[in-house]
């Protein structure tokens, strides 16, 4: 195992995450599919981008009927991506660059091709017989909703071999594991140990609300599920020193997600699903209420816990956590082509969702990097990659990374027809226009702007750890907030509107202080008792560090000469 990056147990609170699919990033062996050797070769790019931790989508052996979320062997790497040795080399090289790595882990279910399921269905006397949720009837747990409503009509599927129904909250080829069985819990812990022993920095745990089923409930967020998760956390903390992170995928309302942090003894982090669609709504409505409102409804977290924020990911832009009225508005605003809708979501990437409007792309990234939580950047969004809604399922947002204007976007030396998915070639987002090589050479490119924003985010721990206080200027198109951590105060001002806006901020509590714009180091006029007047260009944003006057900055009288 390599030497893992140093740092304390709560390193994730200051980290910027980067979500990447092995198959999509770089093909190292020329077979048309990205792999670990390719990803390893591109680690310097990620280091240069300034991210701290990579989140690797499922990399395990799988029939790939759900892009790897149908795992057939938890202990091996999918052959197209490489071997466990390749993974180890990748992990060591990442650690050598100070980058951490977490990997997706599907805890709720396996592929129906998994040997556990095959043994379970074929031999009721086998040790695996009770590894899955079997029933003689499909009438149990009727209050549980069907999640993939476009593909599945029910959560039960009849297995002709065992002659019984098995439970699945997702696709029929993904039978749910039976977490009431202690052997399943022990087996899953062994899976985690297998990767943690190799130095992995943690897991993004997929679909955690559904681990346990109980009659008369909707089978989500049950106390028994939380008990299982707390057991896992306790064991991992005890055996691995407490700095491996567990990130929950729980697409639920904030008060339900809050339970997944427990008393600081369950998950370290969880995605803030409801925030993300409301960011888009706020920008489309040119009105701050949706964002302020969802934070008002967001409960406080235990000290060690942290939200994970994202603008886009490998799934559709999920609208599960919005009201029907909000959902209709979102479809109207962002997905007028019916092809763009999928399940309860929109399958677009960031740039096309925003009509490739550079100002709005920057604004949303400003929000991502300054609202409370640790941000996740989805691969390719840092250069404004496009999507292809005509590819099936969610493949449209999982196309090859666009490295250069060369053949196959510099992603692979394979014949074009062998690529796992075609590269984006449309005139606006195509790889000839949008690629890393071109943007690296252009100082004002989105890529270089992202680097500057991520670097600026490192200048204060208040970005990752600070409390938030929303300001309430009369102009509803301005979203302004203070982030406070220790003696560090940040003032963030965002113009949600596509037109220039004035704003008067009540900053009396900071009278005498001077806002210093972080990216340009420009000193703005000092704050006084009167309203602080700013004007912002269309979708403009300011990140200010609040500099206190000499007296306020030097409470002890030793500061200027301490060294």
């Amino acid at each position, binding site marked *: 195992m390599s030497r893992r990056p*140093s*740092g*304390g*147990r*709560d*390193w994730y609170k*200051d980290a910027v995450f980067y979500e990447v699919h092995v198959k999509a990033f770089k093909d190292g062996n020329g077979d048309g599919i990205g792999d670990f050797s390719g990803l390893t070769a591109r680690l310097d790019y990620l280091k240069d981008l300034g991210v701290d931790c990579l989140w690797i989508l499922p990399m395990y052996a799988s029939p790939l009927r759900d892009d790897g979320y149908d795992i057939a062997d938890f202990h091996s790497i999918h052959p197209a991506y490489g071997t466990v040795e390749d993974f180890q080399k990748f992990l060591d090289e990442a650690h050598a660059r100070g980058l951490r790595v977490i990997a997706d882990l599907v805890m709720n279910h396996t592929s129906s091709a998994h040997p556990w399921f095959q043994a379970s269905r074929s031999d009721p006397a086998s040790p695996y017989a009770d590894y899955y949720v079997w029933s003689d009837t499909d009438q149990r747990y009727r209050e549980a909703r069907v999640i993939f409503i476009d593909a599945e009509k029910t959560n039960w599927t009849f297995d002709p071999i065992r002659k019984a129904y098995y439970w699945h909250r997702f696709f029929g080829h993904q039978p749910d594991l039976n977490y009431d069985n202690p052997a399943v819990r022990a087996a899953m812990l062994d899976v985690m140990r297998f990767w943690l022993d190799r130095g992995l920095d943690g897991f993004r745990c997929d679909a955690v609300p559904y681990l346990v089923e109980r009659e008369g409930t909707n089978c989500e967020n049950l106390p028994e599920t939380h008990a299982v998760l707390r057991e896992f956390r306790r064991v991992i903390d005890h055996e691995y020193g407490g700095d491996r992170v567990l990130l929950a995928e729980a697409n639920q309302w904030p008060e339900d997600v809050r339970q997944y942090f427990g008393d600081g003894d369950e998950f370290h982090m969880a995605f803030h699903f409801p925030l993300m669609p409301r960011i888009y709504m706020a920008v489309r409505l040119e009105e701050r209420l949706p964002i302020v409102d969802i934070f008002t409804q967001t409960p406080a977290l235990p000290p060690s816990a942290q939200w994970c924020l994202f603008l886009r990911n490998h799934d559709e832009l999920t609208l599960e956590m919005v009201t029907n009225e909000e959902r209709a508005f979102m479809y109207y605003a962002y997905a007028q082509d019916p092809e763009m809708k999928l399940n309860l979501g929109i399958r677009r990437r960031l740039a096309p969702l925003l009509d490739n409007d550079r100002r709005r792309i920057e604004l949303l990234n*400003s929000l991502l990097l300054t609202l409370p939580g640790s941000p996740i950047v989805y691969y390719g969004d840092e250069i404004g990659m496009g999507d292809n809604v005509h590819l099936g399922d969610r493949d449209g947002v999982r196309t090859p990374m666009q490295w250069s204007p060369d053949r196959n976007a510099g992603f692979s030396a394979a014949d074009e027809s062998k690529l796992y998915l075609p590269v984006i070639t449309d005139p606006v987002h195509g790889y000839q226009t949008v690629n890393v090589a071109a943007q690296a050479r252009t100082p004002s490119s989105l890529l270089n702007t992202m*680097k*500057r924003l991520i*670097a*600026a985010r*490192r*200048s*204060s*721990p208040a970005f990752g750890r600070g409390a938030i206080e929303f300001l309430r200027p009369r102009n509803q198109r301005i979203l302004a907030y203070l982030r406070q951590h*220790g*003696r*560090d105060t940040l003032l963030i001002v965002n113009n949600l509107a596509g037109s220039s806006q004035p704003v008067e901020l009540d900053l009396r509590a900071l009278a005498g202080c001077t806002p210093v*714009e*972080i*990216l*340009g*180091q*420009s*000193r703005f006029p000092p704050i006084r008792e009167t309203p602080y007047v700013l004007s*912002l*260009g269309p979708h*403009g*944003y*300011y*990140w200010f*560090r609040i500099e206190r006057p000499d007296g306020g*900055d*030097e*409470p*002890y*009288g*030793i*500061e*200027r*000469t*301490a*060294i």
Partner: protein
Amino acid sequence: MTDAGQAPPPPPELDSQLAALVPCEIVVGLPTYNNAGTVPAVAAAVRVGLAAHFADVSAALVNVDAGSMDQTPELLAAEAGMSVVLARHEAPSVERAAVPFHGVPGRDAALRVLFDVARRLNARVLVLLEADVTSVTEAWIERLARPVWEAKADLVSPVYVRHRHEGTMTNLILAPLVRTLFGRRLRQPFGGAFAVSRHLLDHVLAHPLRPTTGRDRMDLWLTGTAIADGFAVWEAWLGPRHVESRTRTTDLPTMLAQSLGAVFTVMDRDAEFWLGVTGSEPLSTVGERARPPAALGTVSAERMIDAFRRGMRDLVEVWELILAPETLGRVLSLDMRDVATCRFPDRLWAHVVFDFALGHHHGVVHREHLLRSLVPLYLGRTAAFVATTQSTDEVGTDAALERVGAAFEAQKLYLTERWR
């Protein structure tokens, strides 16, 4: 929003500038970042100092800039009145956004460029100054450069004359720690300025472990290498050091995290410098110690004690992870109710700092937070120092600081036994 700043175009290629210069015997290096307000005074001191003390010696002023947006390099070139080389060095955006305690984003990169230029100009002496220190006089050039010029020293480190309440971070943490590590009683290890010989430059430029990445490590590594490899290290008494900067951080936690973080990093990466060192020796000095200046402002020991108490309230859970149980127990039982009577024993203080060094080494807590969580303890120690030296003179203050250094040195075994 504002853009990242409209930096002026880069200076002409370094190679062509150097080709136009004859070899120089003295190179004065000046790293800068938005110092337009102070560089004229610094340039004038350099010009006068060289004319007064090294009249017939060829010299050049080499500016290495981090991307100033106030035309610092242009102003310097106009004011210098001597051969000037203008160079740029890499400065991470994060350090330009929040300028470190020493005032120069990417200082290590600046030093690397300077070392390289000085060597290419075949300089016998490289003198490094700070662009925002306005109290620099012509005498500083003489005192820093002369021991090297006369081949007595390979590295000359500055000692500024300070009021007893100035430099508390240096006096109570950095200097005792560096003394313990390197076995030399270096009084101000982060003095900013220094002079270095060609002999030592050749050595460090060829050194396989010369830092090529990272931040704020080069100054200490240079000193460590010079001492470990038997070069002559001297100190030069300079006058008071007045800094006029609008960009240097004055946030104590940040200053502590950066300066002590640099020492801890050197401890981690260059353990061969210090693990086998025992005892310490004073350094040869040049120049006279002037009368210390009056206090610059009002020191508030009451606020320091308040901060210590807040730390006791809020940070004990973090300290539990860092401090040895017996150290924490003794810290928690300190009587810090009153400024007049507060005390912080030197031996306990040495254990506190060593426990933090060990915690940093073993990565028990996020390193930035570890370093920042030392601040209340440092303020408690400083309050006790202020209390015990309130009515002492210079000699008494020196004696108190010597006791701190001696306590660190005496406890070194505590550190080395727990290091591996």
